[in-house]
């Protein structure tokens, strides 16, 4: 509605009738006609929008409100929900698994960043230097992304098998002792992170690769003429030039890994010794094992607040770093 062009195209009936050579209408009539046209355009637009408005209202906007309400209610699907104040939160805080789940989730997120952030970036830098078989590398690294996560999880559970699994067989073949992988609480989380990185690094690697492709070659040339070695060029040219993509993906990755569910649910069920109970696994148990939807909602509200605070802080800090 801002540009004259767009408003003229919306004025189609008038344009065509003036072309047909109808006598000029009075000012009042013109105003009435314009109003009627505006109304009609808005009706058409909202007609096209109505399906989207309904699904957003039902499955996004309403559940947001409902989620907050549920956090302070007790729901049993027989009686109408009753208000219980902060009872749901108190119940969560008293659950010994609550602290465990947050610790495990943070551990997963930190480990996933160490691997899932550094490995794809270095892979992308490496691939960007290679002149041959580019299509093959792209295809290979992205292939796991296309596998259904349940298949990946089940497949790796089998690879990790302490007896006949691929890992211990391979280690045994070169004379090394096998590990317990998923069966020891020391290595279980690390094993899950490894799977998650393998399955998801394809997309981040290719996004980094696209970002690296946009760096002007002259920057490297200039840096080299100034005597910057390989390492210095990486630190002073590559990193700053891909900074924006790196910062955005870091944020997205933290938000995504804090919601890890499929790997622990399928591969360990939270064990051994609750070492892989994550926040989302606990949320699942509260809602669909204990049928306590109120506490489950309270937990998702806490997760939402935690991620919201993190995102806000992160955006503010990176912006501040940009300005200084």
């Amino acid at each position: 509605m801002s540009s004259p062009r767009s408003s003229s195209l919306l004025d189609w009936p008038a344009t065509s009738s003036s072309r047909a050579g109808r006598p000029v209408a009075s000012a009042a009539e013109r105003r009435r006609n314009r109003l009627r046209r505006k109304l009609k355009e808005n009706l058409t637009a909202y007609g096209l929008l109505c399906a989207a408005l309904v699904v957003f209202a039902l499955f996004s906007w309403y559940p947001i409100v409902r989620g907050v309400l549920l956090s302070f209610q007790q729901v049993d699907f027989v009686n109408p929900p009753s208000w219980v104040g902060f009872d749901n939160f108190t119940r969560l805080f008293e659950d010994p698994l609550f602290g465990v789940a947050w610790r495990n989730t943070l551990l997963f997120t930190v480990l996933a960043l160490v691997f899932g952030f550094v490995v794809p970036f270095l892979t992308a830098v490496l691939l960007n230097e290679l002149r041959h078989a580019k299509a093959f590398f792209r295809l290979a690294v992205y292939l796991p992304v296309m596998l259904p996560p349940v298949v990946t999880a089940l497949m790796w559970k089998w690879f990790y098998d302490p007896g006949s699994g691929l890992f211990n067989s391979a280690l045994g073949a070169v004379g090394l002792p096998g590990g317990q992988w998923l069966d020891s609480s020391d290595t279980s989380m690390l094993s899950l992170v490894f799977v998650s990185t393998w399955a998801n690094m394809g997309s981040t690697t290719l996004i980094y690769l696209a970002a690296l492709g946009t760096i002007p070659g002259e920057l490297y040339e200039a840096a080299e003429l100034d005597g910057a070695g390989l390492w210095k060029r990486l630190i002073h040219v590559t990193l700053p030039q891909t900074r924006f993509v790196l910062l955005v993906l870091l944020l997205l990755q933290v938000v995504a890994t804090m919601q890890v569910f499929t790997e622990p649910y399928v591969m360990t069920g939270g064990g051994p010794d609750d070492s892989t109970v994550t926040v989302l696994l606990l949320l699942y148990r509260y809602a669909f094992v204990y049928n306590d939807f109120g506490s489950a909602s309270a937990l998702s509200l806490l997760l939402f607040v935690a991620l919201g605070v993190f995102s806000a802080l992160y955006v503010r800090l990176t912006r501040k770093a940009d300005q200084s």
Partner: protein
Amino acid sequence: MRTLVSPGTLRSPGGKIGYAVIFGCTLLLFVIAFLFPLYWAVTGAMKSPQELAQTPATFIPNEWHPETFGDAWDQLSLGKYFLNTIIVAGGAWLAQLAIDVPAAFALSKLRPKFGNVVLGLMLATLMLPAAALLVPTYVTITDLPLLHVNLINSPAAVWLPAAANAFNIYLLKRFFDQIPDELIEAARLDGAGPVRTLWRIILPISRPILAVVSILAVVAAWKDFIWPLLVFPDTEKQTLSVMLQRVAIDMPLNVLVAGMVLASLPMVALFLAFQRHILAGLTAGSVKG
């Protein structure tokens, strides 16, 4: 194109050897890391159960049992679960196109009153972690407001929430914004209404973005696990992922692995066929932050 390593360095004798070594190592590493696990799964499915359980594992099967794939198809009723998954993913795809394309068109080209408010409210949902909506959306699905319909065990429980996809609307609107208004004006002068303009003018030139949205929709629906796990308690209605996870403990390993390989094939085939679009969708996705 000039990258981190200068062309001069690469041309020097030392550079050539270094490049060859690094290239060879990377190639080997990629084969081991990304292709070998898939080889292991495909050949593992063809080993006898005894061979599959033996320690140390065999690299090449001693006996080949390709018939395991047929057994898996029968024992896991894969035909039924493939059909369920296709219905769920196909419906989610159609719902997203049918609902999000007209919405994005209206917001981009008809610019109704409060259009920006509506768009803002839609995009705001992108800020929300999906997990935060899991429980309230589930509760909503069990008893839709006003209609009081229970969508549990119905594929609509996946289709409809999938259509409330702000990212699709954002991608589509951004594409429609680039279509010159003159084109639409010309259509109007020729007597086409907005719906006809959308159908005859906009959609044909929007094929690239429609392909991206379509593939994102199908892949997401095929890969999804937690939502189908919640809304399909009836084992007859479940998708491949939910079924595989459910039977994983009871099935002989070779049959299970064969089922996993078969369940992955459509996505791998889709990827090989539509690489270009999938990678385009990936970089389109990367700007969403």
